[in-house]
C-alpha cells in the first residue's frame, strides 16, 4: 500500500440508551463491523469506552481513513465528536489490531479520566499522543 498513512484520534459521547446488556451488545456490534471492515481496507486502531465517552484512534491509508471516519461520523450511537488529531504518520501504533478495545476498566489512565470527567472539554488541550500512548499501555499491560 503506497498511499500515505494518516491517523485520526477523536473523542465522542455515547448516545446508546438502555441497560448494560444493551450497551454491551451494541459495542460488540460496533467492534464486529469495525474489525471486519477495517481489515478489508487496511485500517488499524483502538477504541476505548469509558463513562459514556468513546475515544478512538484510526490509522491507515488516507482515503480509507477518510471513508471509514465518514461512516463513523454518521453513526447515531455517538455524538459531540471532537477531533483530537488528524495528521500524517510515519508508522502505525496499533499495527496488530484491526480495532483493539479497551472497555470499562479500573485502571483508566489519568489523561482519559480527565477527558471523561470534563464536560465540554477543550479538544485542543488534549494531547493526541497521550491518548494514543495511554490506550497502547493499557493494551500491552493485558
Amino acid at each position, binding site marked *: 500500500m503506497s498511499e500515505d498513512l*494518516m491517523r485520526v484520534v477523536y473523542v465522542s459521547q455515547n448516545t446508546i440508551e438502555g441497560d448494560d446488556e444493551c450497551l454491551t451488545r451494541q459495542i460488540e456490534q460496533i467492534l464486529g463491523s469495525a474489525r471486519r471492515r477495517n481489515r478489508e481496507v487496511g485500517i488499524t486502531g483502538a477504541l476505548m469506552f469509558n463513562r459514556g465517552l468513546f475515544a478512538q484512534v484510526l490509522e491507515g491509508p488516507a482515503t480509507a481513513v477518510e471513508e471509514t471516519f465518514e461512516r463513523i*461520523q454518521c453513526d447515531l450511537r455517538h455524538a459531540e465528536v471532537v477531533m483530537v488529531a488528524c495528521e*500524517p504518520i510515519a508508522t502505525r501504533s496499533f499495527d496488530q489490531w484491526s480495532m483493539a478495545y479497551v472497555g470499562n476498566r479500573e485502571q483508566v489512565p489519568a489523561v482519559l479520566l480527565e477527558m471523561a470527567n470534563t464536560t465540554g472539554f477543550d479538544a485542543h488541550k488534549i494531547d493526541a499522543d497521550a491518548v494514543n500512548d495511554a490506550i497502547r499501555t493499557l493494551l500491552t499491560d493485558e
Partner: protein
Amino acid sequence: MSQPQTACLPDTAGQANELDVSSFGGLTGFAVLDQNGCLVSANARLLELLDDRVRGSGKLDPFSLELHSHSAKELADALTGTDNANLQLDFSNGVRRYLQLGQLRASRRLLLISATHFEESSQADPELDALTGLGNRHRLQQTLSRLESDRTRLSAPHGSTLSNDAPAILLVDIDRFKQINDTLGYRIGDSLLKLVCSRLRRLTTESDPLLRIGGDEFLLVLHASDDAHNAIDLAERIVDLMSRPFLVEAQQLDIGVSIGIAFFDEQTPDSATLLQHADLALQQAKTRGRRQACIFQPSMAVDAQRRRALEIDMRRALALQQFRLVYQPQVDLRSGRLVGFEALLRWEHPVRGMVSPAEFIPIAEDTGEIRRIGAWVILQACLQASLWPDGLKVAVNVSPLQFDDGNLPEHIDTALQQSNLPPEQLEVEVTEGLLFQNPDAALAQLSRIRQMNVDIAMDDFGTGYASLSHLSRFPFTKVKIDQSFVRGAVDDRTQALVSCIISLGSSLGMRTLAEGVETSEQYRRLQESGCDAVQGYLISRPLEAGSVGNFVERCTRQIQGGDVAA
C-alpha cells in the same frame, strides 16, 4: 472473472438479430459485448484503440488490458453492473482512452471507445448536477409543479387539508461554505459537497426528491405522508449530522447547516410562495445564529413585506427630505454648563409617521443605504452646529459600515470644510461593534480622524463586548456610559460598575458622559461619582434644530442662577 471461456471472436457476428458493428468507420471504436464481456462484434478502430490487446482472447478482460489498477477496477465494476457507464481508461503505458457502455438488449451491451472525450452533451442531463448527481435548479420547477398537482389531486373534496400532513420542503444551506471554498480551494469544496449530499441522502429516502439548487443550497421535498413532527425531527437530525466534523484530504472541516422548513398547507397558494416561505424561514434560522432549523410562520412574511416596503421608502427618504436631525443637550456636571448636543436622526414618513431608528437603521445597514444617510448626517450636523454660538460641540453617530470604504476621514474633512465648523467642535460616536468587525481598518481611520482634532467617543459602553484593551488601543477621547446603567432602580453593583467605568475613563485620560439621566437623584449620584457630563430627559428631550438657539439662550440666563438641572 471466472466465466467459462467461450470462443467468441469478432467474426461470430452477422447472425440473425445480432447488430454487426464491424463495418462502422470513423474515429470511434464500436463493439457489441455479450454478458461475459466477450466481443460479439467489433470494428477495426476498436481493436486499434485498445492496441490489439483484445484480439487474442476476443474478450474485454479488465485485468489483462494492462490498465492502471484504478481503471481496471472501474471497468470491472462497470462490466459486472448493468448500468450505463462512462469511464476513463488509463493504461500502464500512459495512454488514455474513453469508454462508454450502454445496454442494447437483455444480453447485449454496446461498447464505445474513443481517444478523446465523448461529447459531454450527449451524456450530461442538463437537469442533473454533475458533481452530486442530484437534480439541479432546472429540475426545481418540475419538482415544485409536481407538488402542486399532487396537492390538487389529493386534497379532500372540502379542501380540508390539515397542515399536519401537508407536504413540506426543507431548504438546507451550508453555513460558511464559501469560506471553505475560498481558503481551501474548489477541489476540497467539491469533495465536501459530495459528503454533505451523501449525509443528506443517508437521512432521507430515495423517494424524497433532493435537489441542489444553489452552490451550497439543497432542497428536500417531504411528501404528504410525513407529518409535521417528521419534518422537524428530520431537520434536527440533519443539523446534528452536518455539525459533525468532515474529513477531506486529511483535513478536518467543520461546517453546519441552517434549515428553513415550510409546509404546503391551505394558506400557501402555490409552490412559488412555498419556496419563498422556506427561504424566509431559512433567513430566520441564520439570523438566530445558524446551525438550526426554523419553521415558516406567517409573521415572517408580514415582517418581510413590511421590510421590503420600508426599504423602498427609505431609498427615497433622503431625496424627499424626510430625514432630519434633532439635538439632545449635554451638560457638564461640574459647572452645570451646556457643553454640546448629540445629533439624532429622525425619519418622518408622510404615511407611516415616525419610523423608529431601531427599525430603519438595521435595514439601512443591511442594504448599504447607511453610507449615503451617514454622509448626509455628518454634513447636516456640521452645517447646523456651525450656526450655534459659543463653540458648542456636536456629537454624530457613525455606523461601522461607514468605515468600510476607508474614506471616512476624508468625508469628515469635506463636511468640516463645507460647514466651516472648527474640528474640535465635532465629536464622532462609534459603537463597540466597530472594534470587532475590522479593527485594523477602524483603528487606522479613527487615528486619522483624531489627528484632525475631531473628538472620538465610544458609545453604549458596557453593553457589548468591548474590553479594556480596546479602550486603551483606540484613540477615544470620551466614554459614554449606556443608559441601562443609569436609568431605573440602580443597585449597588451597578453603581459600583458605573464608578469603575468613570475612574477607568479618567485614568486613561478620557472624559465620561452618562446617558439617560431622568431624575435629579441620578444627576447627583453621577456628580458624586466624578462623571464629567450627562444627557437625558432631566436636561431636555432632543430638540428640533430650530429650537436649539432658544434653548442655548435660556441656559445662559439660567446659569447665572445655578445648575441647568436644578
